[in-house]
C-alpha cells in the first residue's frame, strides 16, 4: 500500500501546486499507525502528514457538504464504497459535482483496531500489514493475526470494488472480489421468531448511549437540523430514558435513510457500543430489493429513490408477511 500512498501524495501535491484544486480531502497520520483521522490539506507542505493505510476506513464523502462550500475545487480520495455515498449526496444536491475532483483509490479492505485488541492484544504500539497477515506489536510482545479476522465489519460484506464516480483513479493492485453476502445476517434474523428478534434488538439497543455518532457520521443524515434535535418535531429526544426512545430513534433514522442508505457501514463502524446498526438499514435495503426490484442507492447520481417512486402493481402491505422468507 505504500506505493498507493506515495502516488496519492504525488497527485495531491500536483493538483494543489498547479492550482487545479484548492484543497484535498484525505487522511492524516495520528499518534499511531492505526489512528489516522480525516483531514483537509490545503498546502503541499501539509501533505507530509498525509497517510493512506489499512486504517483509513472512514468514509470522507460527507465532509464534502461543508468543505465544498468553500471557494475553489476540492479533490477527494474515495474508496469504492465511499463513491456510492458521494453519488447519493450529489443526487440530493448536497454537493455540487462540478466543484469536486474525485480520485478513486484502491481498497484492499480496512482494518478494525478494536477487533485486533479483541484478540487479546493490548497496549498496541504498531501494526504492520503484510498481505493477508497483520503483525501487531505491543508492549507485551508481538502477535501475527489473519487479516480476515480483524477487518472492519463493513469490509467483510463489501458490495463491490468498482468506483461509482471518479475523475481519475489510483489503482495499482488488483482489488479483492466483492463478498456477495450482505444479506446473510439479515436473513438470519428474519429466520428467528418475533420473540427472539425482539430479545436480540432489545439487548443490542439497550447498549445505546445516544451519542448520535451513527447519525452524525451517516452521509444520508445530512439534514440541517435533525428531527431528534428539533423541539418542534414532536419526537425530539436527547437521552436513552426508555427502551422506546432507542427504538424510536433507530426506527425513524433507518426509515429516513431508507432508499437513500448506500450501506456504507459507517454507522456500525463508529458505534462505541458496537451495536450492529447496519443490520437495521440493510433490512430496508433487502426489503426494497425484494418488494420493488433491486436498487442500489448511490449507483448513480440521478433518478428517484424507491420511496419516492411507485408502481401500480406494487406489493400490497397485507402481502408483506405472506411471501416466503420475508
Amino acid at each position, binding site marked *: 500500500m505504500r506505493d498507493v500512498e506515495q502516488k496519492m501524495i504525488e497527485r495531491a501535491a500536483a493538483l494543489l501546486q498547479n492550482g487545479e484544486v484548492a484543497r484535498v480531502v484525505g487522511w492524516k497520520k495520528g499518534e499511531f499507525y492505526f489512528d489516522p483521522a480525516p483531514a483537509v490539506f490545503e498546502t503541499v507542505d501539509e501533505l507530509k502528514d498525509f497517510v493512506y493505510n489499512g486504517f483509513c476506513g472512514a468514509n470522507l464523502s460527507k465532509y464534502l457538504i461543508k468543505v465544498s462550500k468553500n471557494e475553489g475545487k476540492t479533490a477527494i480520495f474515495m474508496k469504492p464504497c465511499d463513491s456510492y455515498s458521494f453519488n447519493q449526496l450529489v443526487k440530493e444536491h448536497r454537493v455540487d459535482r462540478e466543484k469536486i475532483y474525485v480520485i478513486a483509490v484502491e481498497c484492499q479492505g480496512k482494518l478494525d483496531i478494536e477487533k485486533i485488541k479483541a484478540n487479546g492484544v493490548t497496549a498496541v504500539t504498531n501494526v504492520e500489514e503484510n498481505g493477508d497477515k497483520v503483525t501487531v506489536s505491543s508492549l507485551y510482545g508481538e502477535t501475527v493475526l489473519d487479516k480476515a479476522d480483524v477487518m472492519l465489519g463493513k469490509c467483510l460484506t463489501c458490495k463491490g470494488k468498482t468506483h461509482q464516480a471518479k475523475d481519475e483513479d489510483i489503482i495499482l493492485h488488483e482489488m479483492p472480489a466483492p463478498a456477495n453476502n450482505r444479506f446473510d445476517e439479515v436473513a438470519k434474523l428474519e429466520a428467528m421468531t418475533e420473540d427472539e428478534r425482539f430479545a436480540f*434488538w432489545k439487548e443490542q439497543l439497550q447498549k445505546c448511549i445516544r451519542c448520535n455518532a451513527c447519525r452524525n457520521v451517516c452521509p444520508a443524515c445530512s439534514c440541517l437540523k435533525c428531527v431528534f434535535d428539533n423541539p418542534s*418535531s414532536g419526537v425530539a429526544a436527547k437521552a436513552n430514558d426508555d427502551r422506546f426512545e432507542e427504538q424510536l430513534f433507530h*426506527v425513524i433514522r433507518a426509515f429516513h435513510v431508507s432508499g437513500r442508505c448506500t450501506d456504507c457501514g459507517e454507522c456500525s463502524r463508529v458505534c462505541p457500543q458496537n451495536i450492529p446498526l447496519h443490520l*437495521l438499514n440493510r433490512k430496508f435495503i433487502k*426489503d426494497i430489493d425484494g418488494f420493488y426490484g433491486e436498487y442500489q442507492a448511490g449507483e448513480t447520481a440521478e433518478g428517484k429513490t*424507491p420511496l419516492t417512486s411507485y408502481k401500480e402493481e406494487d406489493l400490497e402491505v397485507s402481502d408483506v408477511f405472506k411471501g416466503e422468507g420475508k
Partner: protein
Amino acid sequence: MQDVTTGNKEFKPNIVAFCCNWCSYAGADLAGSSRLTYPANVKIIRVPCSCRVNPMFVLKAFQQGADGVILCGCHPGDCHYVTGNYYTRRRMALLFSFLNYMGIEKERTRVEWVSAAEGAKFSAVMNDFVKTVTELGENKRLTDLRVKEGK
C-alpha cells in the same frame, strides 16, 4: 410500571385509525349511517390522504400506549391525490416489515383500502382488527413505560 396480564378478558385494546378524508373517512361515515357497529376502542384521526401519515405518527401512537395502529386509504388507483396512496403503500410495507424485524408483532399494524362506498368493509375491518389485537394482548414492546406510569 404496571403489568397487565395479556389475554385478560377485560383487556380492551386502544386502536388508532388514520383515515384519509376522501375514501376511508367517508367509508367510516357510511358505516355509521348504516349503523354497522364496531368496538368503541377504535378512534379515528382524519388526514387528507393516507400519504400524510408519517411513520413518526405510528410510532407516537405506540409510544403513547396504542395497542394497534391501522391506516385506511383509497384503493390504489383511486387516490383523490392521484398517487398518494402508492407512496403510502411502499412506506408502510417497508415500515411494518421493519417493525416486525425488530420483533414487533406484525398483527399490530395494518393497512386497508376502504372506499367511500365500503361502509360494511370498514366495519368488518375494524371488528377484525380489534379482535386480532385483543387476542394479541397489550402492546408492551413498542410502548414508552413513562407514559403509562400514571395509569
